[in-house]
């Protein structure tokens, strides 16, 4: 019978080091996914996952047996990601993306269809999306990923970031604002033009 997390933790704390391998097997992929979405870098995500499992192993003695291990390790992963983002910023990592002009009209293309126009639009969207992500603070970035891509509640995000729910909500909002400022011009003109008969 498959042991649950609590049983595995008890086994590790009782001296069975290998039981931790089962925990890594169970939660490793999830933590990698979160780390990748925050950093958008495979090597950084792998570094974060390693650090997460190392830290959690060392702190396992402090783990409250009544808590959920997944939530606990999730918070550790978010902390590791935040630290890595701060480190990268400090190192002055050169952004992949270049600055863009909010009012560039040449790339205001229709959403539908395929072919070269669509490919060009997708490329531009990706370029602007990454630029917007880089403009976000670490907290905004993590809050945005957890809310938008991971579907976490405001309370969970607040707990992961160690802030109040209201601050977590504001972080999500500011992140969306930055994303909107970067991407909205791409749709604005065709969208309005394509809906002439809308109600007012």
């Amino acid at each position: 019978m498959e042991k649950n997390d609590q049983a595995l933790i008890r086994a590790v704390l009782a001296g069975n080091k290998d039981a931790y391998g089962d925990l890594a097997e169970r939660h490793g992929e999830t933590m990698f996914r979160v780390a990748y979405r925050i950093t958008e870098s495979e090597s950084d995500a792998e570094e974060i996952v390693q650090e997460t499992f190392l830290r959690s192993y060392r702190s396992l003695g402090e783990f409250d047996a009544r808590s959920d291990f997944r939530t606990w390790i999730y918070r550790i992963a978010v902390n590791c990601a935040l630290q890595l983002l701060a480190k990268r910023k400090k190192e002055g990592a050169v952004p992949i993306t270049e600055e863009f002009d909010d009012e560039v009209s040449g790339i205001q293309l229709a959403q539908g269809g395929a072919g070269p126009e669509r490919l060009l639009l997708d490329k531009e969207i990706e370029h602007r999306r990454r630029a917007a992500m880089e403009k976000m603070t670490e907290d905004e970035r993590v809050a945005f990923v957890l809310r938008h891509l991971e579907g976490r509640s405001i309370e969970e995000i607040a707990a992961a970031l160690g802030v109040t729910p209201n601050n977590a909500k504001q972080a999500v909002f500011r992140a969306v604002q930055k994303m909107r400022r970067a991407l909205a011009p791409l749709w604005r003109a065709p969208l309005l033009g394509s809906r002439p008969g809308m109600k007012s």
Partner: protein
Amino acid sequence: MKHLTEEQLVEHYFADDAESRIAAETHLRICRRCEQAYQEVSNVLAAPAPHPPVHMPGFGRQLWKSIQSPLPAYPAKPRPTWFSLPRLVVAGACLVSLVAAFVGGSHWQRSRKVPMEAANPALAKQRVVLFILDDHLDRSERLLVELSHTAGDKRVPNGSLQADSLQADSLQAEARQLLPDNRLYRQALASGDDPMMSATLDHLERVLLEVANSPDKLNAADIARIEREMKTDTLLFQVRVLRARNSSQETKVESLSKGASI
């Protein structure tokens, strides 16, 4: 019209609860400006994010292999040895306390009971008498009720009475059992200061005699006659009154006994 703020639009996009969704949806249906703004937010958030690379199964295991070597194993907790000296000492102390508590309790109970009974034998006797009398009156009450029902239920249209012979037999048998006891109690209480009890037991004895000494097959006419002549309805009422009085006396005596023991 009050338009939705940018924050409200974002909140609506992520809204989990139906109530806030409905409120915003209602506004969006009637406001073109807000609907366009919301569409923009939706388009922005629908922009595809890069998918995390998918690992081969066993990623977690590989991850563990890559980090496990520098990690020390947690020290194994020593197994509880039930027969180690400290545990034996604790167990022995518990056993001694248990025995001491048992012996002490028994001794205390004995020392409390003896003086109570010795100090107030009258109370103890009264409790026994009340208990026995209550039982006797209870059985007598049931017999009188049966007698009354037999006479009342078996009345036939032509006025003659046909008692169930089996029921009559059981009534007689019960009366014969109650009679000697009743005599004993009446004689014992005759010299006492409870005229109501004496009178009732006297009345009851006459009824019991009548039922017990009737011909072998007690018929309905006999029962009706006994009921009428011996006024068993009145007797039934008296018995019930006495039982109620006994019950309250029993409670009183019990509380007195407890008071004596404290």
